[in-house]
């Protein structure tokens, strides 16, 4: 935060309210109101341009369904995490809540049917489904941020277990669709 003090316009003395603003000669010749307008238009345009450019630079084009998913060998759940049992395993009805979360937080990358928009994993594949509930829970919790899988540790534990319940239903529906 800065303190108020006299404002000087280069070589032109102290400013009074409504005076022209700026430090250089060019800026001094622009009325304050007009300068504010330039600042606004400039800022808004710059905001949009920056946002668009960033998005375009960092986003790969979308393909339907990830047919070529290769698992990151360095992203493996430790044995004690894999050994964890889903505390909601005997409440399959809670998978409906897991589906709601999946459609809200995961489907944009993994598609609503779990088959994955590259680079997101195809969650219906055996190499995913063969992992234990504990391992899937660990991956959802940790994320693999270097590879664009976010960490969901901020969601309550129970909700992450609900999502695991739902992931198991993807396998069944994928098999039924074959």
């Amino acid at each position, binding site marked *: 935060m800065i303190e108020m003090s006299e404002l000087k316009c280069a070589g032109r003395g102290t400013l009074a309210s409504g005076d022209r603003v700026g430090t250089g000669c060019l800026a001094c010749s622009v009325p304050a109101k007009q300068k504010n307008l330039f600042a606004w238009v400039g800022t808004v345009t710059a905001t949009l341009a920056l946002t668009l450019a960033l998005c375009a630079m960092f*986003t790969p084009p979308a393909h339907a369904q990830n047919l070529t998913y290769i698992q990151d060998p360095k992203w493996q759940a430790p044995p004690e995490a894999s050994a964890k049992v889903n505390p909601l395993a005997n409440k399959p009805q809670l998978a409906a809540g897991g589906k709601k979360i999946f459609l809200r937080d995961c489907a944009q990358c993994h598609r609503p049917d779990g088959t994955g928009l590259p680079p997101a994993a195809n969650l219906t594949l055996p190499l995913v489904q063969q992992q234990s509930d504990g391992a899937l829970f660990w991956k959802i919790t940790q994320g693999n941020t270097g590879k664009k*899988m976010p960490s969901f540790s901020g969601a*309550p534990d129970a909700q992450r277990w609900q999502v695991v319940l739902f992931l198991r239903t993807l396998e069944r529906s994928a098999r039924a669709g074959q």
Partner: protein
Amino acid sequence: MPRPKFAFFVIFLAIALCAGSSIAVAQESPYFTTYDHHLEEPGNLELEFSSTSAPVGGTRADSAFVAPYLELEYGVTGWWTTELYLEGQGRVGDSAVFTGWRIENRFRPLKREHWINPVLYFEYENINEATRILKETPGGPPDFGAPNAESSRARAHEIEAKLILSSQVHNWNIAENFLAEKNLSRSEGFEFGYSVGASRPLSTLASGSDCRFCAENMSAGVEAYGSLGSTVLGFTGRGNSQYIAPVVQWQVSSNSRVKFSPGFGLNDHSYPFLLRFSYTYEIRGFGRKLAALWGGR
């Protein structure tokens, strides 16, 4: 000067139109000034319309004000989130002015979750003395006496760094932020501040149906923020502003949420009462949609 509300609306409309409407929201803490370690999901764009207001002026002859600001937050990668702020301010009995812009970047250096998760934050601010959004309150109390016409001419180019520490403990989020700020426009030394918060969702199970008013859509907590002194004013604690503020958040729909926080000044150098409000709209897969618009598939 165009009205800030109108400009905010134009930006919002443009982005919403080009992004479409299949959108959603994830795990977000209800804080206003405290950051946790959960970055924006890659490719998502979050539009946050917020305001900080003081219904009664501060103790230093400042009048009541409303300071609206717009945040555009984009998840560039899983470990990098970038944000742009546009802010304004209007005071009772005075004018409404544009108070500047800020650009900030947050980086998560560690890949995995730990007991304490660090995030590094760097910000550049091109603001003026009329700023009142009070996203952070480092150093000594600002001199708020001057009218907007005068204070908005005093520009401040500031850089700021934060160390964000955040933990998840039994569905609670606990976060501590420490910040250092340097005004490049004049010599005020380094100013220091903090913000700490704790929050949790009101219900931890998700129901199978869509519900608007159920506890799973609410989270609540408390944050405390203020100043730790500066290299010029010293670190005795005298003259620093300090606040405590309960925070609540309601996820209104899958893609939008509102936050609210009444803040209480704890000493004579703080506003006695602050009201913060925000509405957030999240556009999922924004980057991908944009790439598709530009000819990608």
